[in-house]
């Protein structure tokens, strides 16, 4: 490990040198006659060179962390990255240059969209819609409460304090409140992904962090306008409320439109498979940018686009494109996140700071206090309408998981210094809050989760039986709701699915795939290959041992076969629910390799599979005597020919 640490230090040093020297002009004046065999022209490549260098640094850091399991087990990655950023910033400053600050435009236009798209595309829809009411309540009402509570109390504190804080007026406080109150999706993702908390809590906090963007955007622009204009009327406040609805719904609408366009485009890409992923990315990015043009909520547009287009696009595109999209999204969002945290560290060293003990400490205390009060109060109301109530433990995690991050910093950075003379103080306070939440809350949440014995994410050992019975249960619930005459949750979902199947899928999914259950064809092929590959590697020993060694063999249906069956099931049952087991940044489910296999091996395994299945499952219509059955088994024929043929049919799909 000492080598790794040494390597890091050298890397950091070299990087900083590169940054520093890069700023200097290195082109020599060409007044000699000698032909320059070797000359340096750094200006030509400066911009891309620096960008690549930063990204390379970020990726190498990531690599380094995972080589040291001790560290990554205790400290969340985001903390380490911020520390690295601090180091880099410090080194650059030591070398006499000014470290770069996180440029807000860069952040909002380049670094944030990949993360949000990744989150939106792989958003688990089922938990999200089931808890939509709760999530919206937390996002909207919770954020509003936080903003006004913080703004008001801060204003009161500034009034009381006098001195340097006397110039902070109510509007500035409210604006500060609106910037600092919003839970940040990047930070939440970074921390929560490592603690593997149960699905419900994950989706609550994460969903809230995504949806509160609309509130934040509206309030930010609102207060900024008011501060600029100088006076507030009742009409303005009313317009603010209207603005909120416009921003939120407009964002969703823009995202939805682009999503439908993307789905429609993907219908015709069967001859140009190579650029299929590009459409997904471009349409989503366009949705984000279009929403930003009108000051609508870009995040909501991006989420809506991803959610809308996913089921249709996945039915249309090839398997390889699907893999490409998945990997590219994970890669980009991973790099973005790393860069964001590193830049946060660097900006801390760089930015002009105005430290004020009172202001900063009150801010931190208020953040925690308002969050806790907000969550507890809202949960009390929400629990009246929920079937699965949120317990005290859940509330604690939701409150504690309200992390602030780079969005708050960037928004503060965008403030103009003329309207807000206290901008530096705000920035310092925000950075302190971010550090506090990411370091203190981020580091302690894992031991707290273990201490409170909060339910962890179920290890996705989803068996076929569970799948069958869960689907059965859903139909059952929809049916019982029909008997009750109650138009509930299940009823509407049922209706939506029927509408989806009948009309929308016809338009957006190309060719004959709109008729058949969509996942079946490529999943069949993929899982089949996988199953047989694994069978071959598993049972090559068994095959050679022959039949006699089968006396006490464990009944071992291969996991991949199980996966195959599960996917077939999921693809066909009336509600095709795409349940992704892991939305972790660091792991992806392994996909099947596209290798060839020989025909003979295929046949051998088919026979073997059939034999095992048909041996252990008999339809006891004709009870046989044990010796007769054993004899039949040892001869190697399938026990019942019709069972054998049915399994052959499955394999031949």
């Amino acid at each position, binding site marked *: 490990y000492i080598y790794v640490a040494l390597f890091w230090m050298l890397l950091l040093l070299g990087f900083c040198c590169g940054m520093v020297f890069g700023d200097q002009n290195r082109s020599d004046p060409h007044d000699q006659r000698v032909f320059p065999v070797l000359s340096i022209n750094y200006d030509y490549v400066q911009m891309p060179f620096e960008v690549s260098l930063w990204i390379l640094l970020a990726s190498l850091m990531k690599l380094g962390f995972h080589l040291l399991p001790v560290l990554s087990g205790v400290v969340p990655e985001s903390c380490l990255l911020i520390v690295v950023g601090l180091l880099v910033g410090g080194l650059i400053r030591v070398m006499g240059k000014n470290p770069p600050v996180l440029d807000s435009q860069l952040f909002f236009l380049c670094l944030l969209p990949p993360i949000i798209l990744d989150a939106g595309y792989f958003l688990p829809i089922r938990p999200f819609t089931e808890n939509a009411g709760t999530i919206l309540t937390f996002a909207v009402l919770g954020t509003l409460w936080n903003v006004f509570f913080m703004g008001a109390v801060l204003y009161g504190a500034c009034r009381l304090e006098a001195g340097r804080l006397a110039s902070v007026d109510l509007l500035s406080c409210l604006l500060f409140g609106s910037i600092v109150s919003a839970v940040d999706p990047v930070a939440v993702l970074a921390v929560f992904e490592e603690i593997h908390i149960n699905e419900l809590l994950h989706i609550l906090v994460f969903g809230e962090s995504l949806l509160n963007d609309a509130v934040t955007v509206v309030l930010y622009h609102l207060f900024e306008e008011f501060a600029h204009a100088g006076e507030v009327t009742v009409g303005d406040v009313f317009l603010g409320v209207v603005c909120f609805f416009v921003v939120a719904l407009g964002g969703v609408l823009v995202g939805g439109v682009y999503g439908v366009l993307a789905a429609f485009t993907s219908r015709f890409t069967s001859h140009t498979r190579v650029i299929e992923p590009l459409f997904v990315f471009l349409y989503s990015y366009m949705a984000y940018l279009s929403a930003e043009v009108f000051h609508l909520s870009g995040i909501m547009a991006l989420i809506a686009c991803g959610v809308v287009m996913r089921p249709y696009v996945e039915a249309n595109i090839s398997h390889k494109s699907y893999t490409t999209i998945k990997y590219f999204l994970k890669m980009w969002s991973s790099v973005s996140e790393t860069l964001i945290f590193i830049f946060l560290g660097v900006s801390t060293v760089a930015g002009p700071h105005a430290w004020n003990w009172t202001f900063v400490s009150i801010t931190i205390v208020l953040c925690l206090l308002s969050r806790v009060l907000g969550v507890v109060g809202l949960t009390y109301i929400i629990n009246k309408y929920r*079937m*699965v*109530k949120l317990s005290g433990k859940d509330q604690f995690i939701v409150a504690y998981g309200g992390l602030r991050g780079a969005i708050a910093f960037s928004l503060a950075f965008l403030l103009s210094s003329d309207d807000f003379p206290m901008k530096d103080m705000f920035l310092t306070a925000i950075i302190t809050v971010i550090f506090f939440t990411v370091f203190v809350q981020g580091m302690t949440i894992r031991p707290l989760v273990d201490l409170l014995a909060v339910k962890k994410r*179920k290890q996705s050992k*989803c*068996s*076929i*039986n*569970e799948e*069958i*019975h*869960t689907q*059965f*249960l859903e*139909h*059952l*619930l*929809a*049916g*019982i*709701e*029909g*008997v*009750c*005459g*109650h138009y*509930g*949750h299940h*009823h509407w979902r*049922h209706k939506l699915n*029927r509408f989806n199947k009948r009309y929308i899928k016809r338009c957006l999914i190309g060719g004959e795939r709109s008729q*058949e*259950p969509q996942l*079946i064809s490529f999943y069949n092929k993929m899982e089949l290959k996988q199953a047989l590959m694994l069978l071959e590697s598993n049972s090559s020993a068994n095959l050679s041992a022959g039949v006699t060694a*089968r*006396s006490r*063999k*464990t*009944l*071992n*249906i291969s996991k991949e076969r199980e996966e195959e069956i599960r996917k*077939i*099931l999921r693809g066909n*049952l*009336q509600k095709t629910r795409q349940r992704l087991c892991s939305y972790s940044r660091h792991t992806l489910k392994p996909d099947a390799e596209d290798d060839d296999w020989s025909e003979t091996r295929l046949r051998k395994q088919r026979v073997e599979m059939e034999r095992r*299945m048909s*041996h*252990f*499952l*008999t*339809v*006891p219509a004709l009870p046989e005597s*044990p010796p007769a*059955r*054993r004899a039949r088994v040892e001869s190697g024929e399938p026990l019942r020919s019709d*069972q054998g043929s*049915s*399994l052959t*049919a*499955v394999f031949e799909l």
Partner: protein
Amino acid sequence: MGSFQSLPDDHQYRTLSQKTGFSLEQIAILHNRFKQLSQNEETLRRDDLKTIQDLESNPIRSQIIEAFFDSRNFQKDGVGSVEEIGFEEFLTVMSYFRAPPQHITEEQREEMRRAKLRFLFNMHDTDNDGTITLEEYRHVVEELLSRSGALGRETAKGIADAAMLEVASISVGPMAPDEFYEGITFEHFLKILNGVEIETRMNIRFLNMDATVLCK
């Protein structure tokens, strides 16, 4: 449909409330629905349930309707199915879909879970022999896949076979070559559905219904 205080069978409601755990308000609402379905008669028949339009697109429609008339679900040791049911039986079947109250002990929760799983088990075990055989399981999977006609019975068989194999491997473990797996007993059923939180998922919201508005 006035408030429930003016209804004559208030005492009856109270005994029902104690038996099934519904509140008086919920019972009144369900009673209205019952009367609507049975066209104001005292008993409900299968045909009455078949008229519900919402059920028509449901793939397991027949099994749901059967569940209402299966006497195992409303009598302690009931056997077989009946032709018509009264309001009390209707309510008893509905009580399987009540949400667990917020503060109950572990045993009560476990009991509720077992009761709900028993209901599900009875739905699959149509011949009432205490086990779900391969045929019955195949039937279940076929019904579920019935809406996607492209697949047909062959795949359903394959899937049901694989599922049974899985149950066997979980519950029974390694088997000798001359053993064969008869069927899923209730204990095995409990085991394989261990990971699914039935008591929180198998619930319907009963309070927000207004049966007068919905005429289907």
